[in-house]
């Protein structure tokens, strides 16, 4: 039964291999990747159900008992994230049917997407810290290649910054793993947690924790380590940007949550004020960056940074409520932000630009796209009862309960600034009359055939609807998040599932 844990790795890898073998046939690759993404989503769902019923699941690759082999382990957080990954994979795969350049397909777009999903799922599931590094690299190299596709100047400039800064993060991560092994003699995360909790390992643990924090902080794009993100994300094709924004930074956040709740719990408690400061600055600097922008994709890219601040805030507060809020927030922001990016892609195809100055009148001409944009935008800004509100509610609540008033005030202030920048897009692109000199952009739906329109609208609408549904009926998801947060704060079950023994 626990072999289920292999599926989220096997499915994308097999799909990637088949696509790679079919490199002359993009048409077949599309079908294969669609099937693969569907299967991954299904596997994610089955895994989540299994974890809910049976508790933390683990399996030893190669049948070597932990801590000697590599363990795959799924608690609720991992399983939920894998499930979300599957959903996003499928959504983007459908969207890509209508919005991928043939040249990209010829050069391996589909297998690269699958490898990206593989890396993401691997990162979520692995219970071994070096293996985590490997999956990070798998994810990274696939993202490098996807980002550099296109070969235009903007792609190249974005890619070089992305690549170099992420390589620095990888190098820090690798050094941290090496030193941790030198200190603790094991790589299994549950084993590390046990050793450190039992104080069997001493040495420069805070220093190692800092290395991990900065390495993951770069990946997660926290202040002041986020530069690569606004420099690069907006240069890629929309589908790629979407999957990047949905998953890559979230893997960084996941890793922070995992490592710091499981292994470096003492450090995170000691650093709480600093982490909350980082969270506040990340929110603020990100949202101000967004306000300064006049191009939708750049604006949204800065918002990714800002939202990361909220996730870090939940980690910093470190209560059950705040962690549940972070997990809920993560799922919310994946859905909402992706829907926004995908809707932006539709705007781009319809109006020929994403420059706010050149856009206008879309509320009148494209009411459906307007709705597809408005829902996730409001959700992101935290308008109740959409999902973003409940996400922020838990964080604010937890912050007030624990008396972190400045952080809460920052979070609320950033929330209003988020609303401000969302209404800017809405006002400029949708409400404003079409600007006079906009004749340069082909302003008609002729460029977007009906079929393609619906292929793009379907995943966009689905994700938008998700934020509505988990907003109107948040309880099932919140119950899950609370349970997941409980597992994070009480990792005995996790450790027992990996190393054996009663929890």
């Amino acid at each position, binding site marked *: 039964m626990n*072999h289920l844990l292999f599926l989220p790795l096997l499915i994308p*890898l*097999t799909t990637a*291999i088949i696509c*790679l073998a079919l*490199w002359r046939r993009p048409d077949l690759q599309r079908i294969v990747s669609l099937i693969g993404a569907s299967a991954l989503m299904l596997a994610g769902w089955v895994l989540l159900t299994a974890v809910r019923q049976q508790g933390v699941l683990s*399996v030893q*690759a*190669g*049948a070597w008992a932990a801590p000697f082999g590599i363990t795959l382990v799924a608690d609720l957080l991992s399983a939920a994230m894998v499930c979300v990954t599957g959903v996003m994979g499928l959504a983007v795969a459908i969207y890509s049917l209508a919005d991928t350049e043939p040249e990209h397909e010829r050069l391996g777009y589909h297998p690269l997407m699958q490898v990206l999903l593989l890396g993401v799922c691997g990162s979520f599931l692995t219970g071994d810290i070096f293996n985590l590094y490997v999956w990070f690299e798998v994810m990274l190299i696939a993202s490098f290649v996807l980002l550099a596709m296109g070969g235009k100047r903007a792609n190249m400039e974005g890619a070089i910054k992305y690549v170099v800064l992420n390589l620095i993060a990888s190098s820090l991560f690798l050094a941290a793993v090496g030193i941790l092994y030198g200190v603790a003699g094991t790589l299994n995360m549950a084993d590390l947690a046990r050793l450190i909790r039992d104080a069997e390992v001493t040495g420069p643990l805070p220093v190692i924790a800092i290395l991990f924090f900065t390495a993951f902080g770069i990946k997660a794009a926290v202040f002041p380590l986020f530069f690569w993100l606004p420099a690069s994300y907006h240069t890629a094709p929309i589908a790629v940007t979407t999957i990047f924004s949905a998953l890559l930074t979230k893997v960084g956040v996941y890793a922070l949550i995992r490592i710091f709740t499981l292994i470096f719990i003492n450090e995170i408690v000691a650093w709480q004020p600093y982490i909350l400061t980082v969270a506040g600055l990340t929110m603020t600097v990100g949202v101000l960056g967004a306000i300064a922008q006049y191009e939708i994709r750049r604006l949204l890219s800065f918002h990714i940074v800002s939202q990361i601040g909220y996730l870090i805030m939940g980690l910093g507060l470190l209560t059950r409520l705040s962690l549940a809020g972070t997990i809920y927030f993560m799922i919310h922001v994946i859905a909402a932000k992706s829907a926004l990016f995908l809707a932006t892609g539709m705007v781009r195809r319809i109006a020929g630009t994403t420059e706010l100055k050149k856009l206008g009148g879309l509320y009148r001409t494209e009411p459906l796209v307007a709705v597809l944009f408005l829902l996730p935008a409001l959700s992101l800004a935290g308008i109740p009862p959409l999902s973003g509100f409940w996400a922020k509610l838990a964080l604010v609540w937890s912050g007030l309960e624990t008396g972190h008033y400045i952080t809460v005030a920052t979070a609320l202030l950033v929330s209003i600034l988020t609303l401000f920048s969302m209404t800017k897009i809405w006002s400029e692109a949708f409400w404003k009359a079409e600007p006079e000199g906009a004749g340069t952009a082909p302003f008609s739906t002729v460029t977007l055939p009906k079929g393609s329109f619906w292929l793009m609208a379907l995943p966009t609408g689905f994700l938008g609807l998700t934020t509505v549904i988990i907003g109107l009926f948040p309880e099932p998801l919140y119950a899950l998040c609370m349970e997941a947060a409980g597992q994070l704060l009480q990792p005995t079950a996790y450790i027992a599932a990996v190393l054996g023994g009663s929890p």
Partner: protein
Amino acid sequence: MSSVILSTAIRLLLPLLLLFSVFLLLRGHNEPGGGFVGGLVAAAAIALYALAEGAGAARRLLKLDPRSLIAFGLALALTSGMIPLLFGQPLLTGLWLPFPLPVLGHVGTPLLFDVGVYLLVAGMALLIVLSLMEE
């Protein structure tokens, strides 16, 4: 670079190098060697051939596109990992034939895995080198 000496030498060296690479692959489980090094040596052999005879000739010699080689290598490694699943064992569990084969010795899925690594590494190195040479 079409020197006669290199051209002649490589014709003699190529089979030797390829054989050596397979040797490295097979003995890797017990002595220094393994799929990586083997694959790299094989790629080096063909890359040398490409230096002497041109990238096109090397592609003709290879018959397979390097990308197919990569896909095949990866598929082989993955398959070797998935075989244990059929027997109810976790992914990548080493399964061994109960008796040693001639020449190869003990044969099991880890060996198959290493062959996959070998093919992939060779394909990768060749794809990069050949693409760069064709620039």
